[in-house]
């Protein structure tokens, strides 16, 4: 069941209840034999509790049919007033009495700044209630990727990629004066380079790493840049409005999420009809280098395999056309960002590969690899670095960039 809830009593002046606006969407679904999930998104700021009748009824219905756990998903509920909160509290009190065996879990997002403190009070009051901050671990190796240590990886990567990416951006539809959203913006380097070279009307970068965003903001502040904003956010549940950006980018990120379709859905939602979505992803299977090709290939094949175990697809680049096509985009364009030691600064390229040692090490730990596996991976990375630096060697790192236009039709 999925529907939008209008206030139960959208009163008229004569009824004494002021006209209200409560644009909340309600969604209920069975998530298993024993579980029910009720999702509330949008805004819940009613004038009186009676306006929550539909919500309350749905919650009670879900509570009656759930046998073990009822999840109340509030991760995209942006605003809630105390009237609505008290009504949820009343529901919990009712459930504690009518269904004492039922556990209730409020699923919250750390992106919504008021939510955790508010619901902690209810969780402390009722032993059957828990809260889950779902985005504490919502994709594989999240803590590695969002860590300060990863800043060095990103800085070196961005520098050499931009040199090759920039020249093709106009072909993908980038031009001055656009409203741009850079989802999973990392350190914000891409946003700043776009600002310099393409002068967007407005650019917002969203990332889930607070250290990255602090870095990004500092850069914007140091250089006195305008029209760039950064948001702490979850790429799979963005708080950006529908149909609001001309150009939506998501670079080198889909490959690390185990459910990239959830992010694509959001990219599509925030993109204006006629606007373009631009993604880049690696093709790790296409990394080649000489000398040392056997050791190098073994290492990357192993990283791909470990990535699969962790729910990541390091070969997402090859599926770019399929991804954009299945998202319903038109006028799909794809090009290869072919980084190699002949067309890029070998010192920078080598630094990038050296920095991968940290990430692959963490991937080995997460997937419980024996120490010798990581040692062999390090050997492969080392051989790759040597090939990059060698006067006679050749080493490449293929990244696929693709874009598609969001259709005008509904």
């Amino acid at each position, binding site marked *: 069941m999925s529907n939008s809830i209008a206030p139960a009593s959208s009163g008229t002046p004569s009824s004494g209840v002021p*006209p209200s*606006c409560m644009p909340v969407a309600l969604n209920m679904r069975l998530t298993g034999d024993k579980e029910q999930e009720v999702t509330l998104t949008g805004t819940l*700021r009613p004038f009186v509790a009676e306006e929550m009748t539909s919500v309350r009824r749905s919650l009670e219905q879900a509570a009656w049919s759930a046998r073990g756990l009822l999840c109340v998903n509030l991760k995209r509920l942006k605003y809630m007033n105390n009237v609505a909160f008290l009504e949820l509290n009343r529901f919990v009190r009712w459930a504690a009495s009518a269904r004492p065996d039922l556990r209730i879990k409020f699923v919250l997002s750390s992106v919504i*700044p*008021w939510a955790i403190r508010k619901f902690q009070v209810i969780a402390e009051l009722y032993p059957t209630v828990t809260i889950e901050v779902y985005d504490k671990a919502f994709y594989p190796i999240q803590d590695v990727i969002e860590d300060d240590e990863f800043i060095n990886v990103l800085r070196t990567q961005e520098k050499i990629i931009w040199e090759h990416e920039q020249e093709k951006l106009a072909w993908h539809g980038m031009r001055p004066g656009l409203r741009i959203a850079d989802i999973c913006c990392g350190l914000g380097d891409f946003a700043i380079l776009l600002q310099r070279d393409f002068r967007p009307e407005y650019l917002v970068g969203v990332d889930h790493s607070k250290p990255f965003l602090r870095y990004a*903001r500092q850069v914007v502040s140091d250089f006195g840049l305008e029209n760039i904003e950064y948001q702490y956010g979850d790429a799979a549940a963005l708080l950006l409005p529908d149909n609001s950006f001309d150009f939506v980018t998501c670079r080198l990120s889909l490959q690390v999420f185990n459910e990239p379709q959830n992010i694509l859905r959001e990219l599509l939602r925030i993109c204006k009809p006629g606007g373009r979505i631009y993604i880049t992803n690696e093709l790790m299977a296409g990394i080649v280098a000489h000398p040392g090709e056997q050791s190098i290939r073994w290492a990357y094949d192993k990283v791909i395999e470990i990535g699969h175990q962790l729910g990541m697809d390091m070969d997402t680049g090859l599926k770019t056309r399929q991804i954009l096509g299945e998202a319903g985009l038109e006028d799909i364009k794809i090009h290869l960002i072919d980084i190699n030691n002949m067309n890029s600064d070998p010192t920078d390229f080598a630094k990038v590969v050296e920095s991968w040692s940290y990430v692959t090490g963490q991937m080995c730990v997460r997937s419980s690899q024996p120490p010798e596996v990581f040692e062999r991976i390090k050997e492969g990375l080392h051989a790759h670095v040597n090939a990059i630096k060698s006067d006679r060697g050749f080493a490449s790192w293929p990244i696929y960039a693709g874009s598609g236009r969001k259709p005008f039709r509904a």
Partner: protein
Amino acid sequence: MSIVKTITPAPTMEADFASSRYRMIMVARFTVGGFAREWSHCHLLANYLARYVSANEGDPERHATLLSTFINELLEVIYRNHAPDGQIELIFRKKGRHVILQITLPVSEQNRVFYRMAVQIVNQPDLKSWYRARLEEPAEGEDTMLGLLELAAVYACTLTISEPPGHDRISLFLELPEVDEMGEV
């Protein structure tokens, strides 16, 4: 529950505002009649003002989402408790990472009693226990005050009142908790 009979005005707060520690951000004035015409004005105004106040923050959107929560609760209480006409003035100041809202509104005697009681409850020593007890066993007629009390009990806002003698207006001072540039309390 007893109603406080006298309340000490907060002249120190107003005097403090003259000092350089407080930075004026904005002033909004609107009529009671316009504001009270629609409930949704609380939501719209809270979001608009929050966005304005958060414009220079590191994460304006998240900062504004949090601020809107606080401003909205205050406006909802004002919506329910004000004199039939007159002007409402909302002043935003900033001290370090704290935003301080001063709202001055026309009140009836009944409104005045309501706000005195709210301030008294907010400033009781064990507010958190009191708030939790109200969630467990809500008392009749207290719901409209709980939003304001939640700001103090859950988010550590402070609330004071100033009543200039001989006027049918009061000022409420809501000091918000320290919010970092990311919009984190």
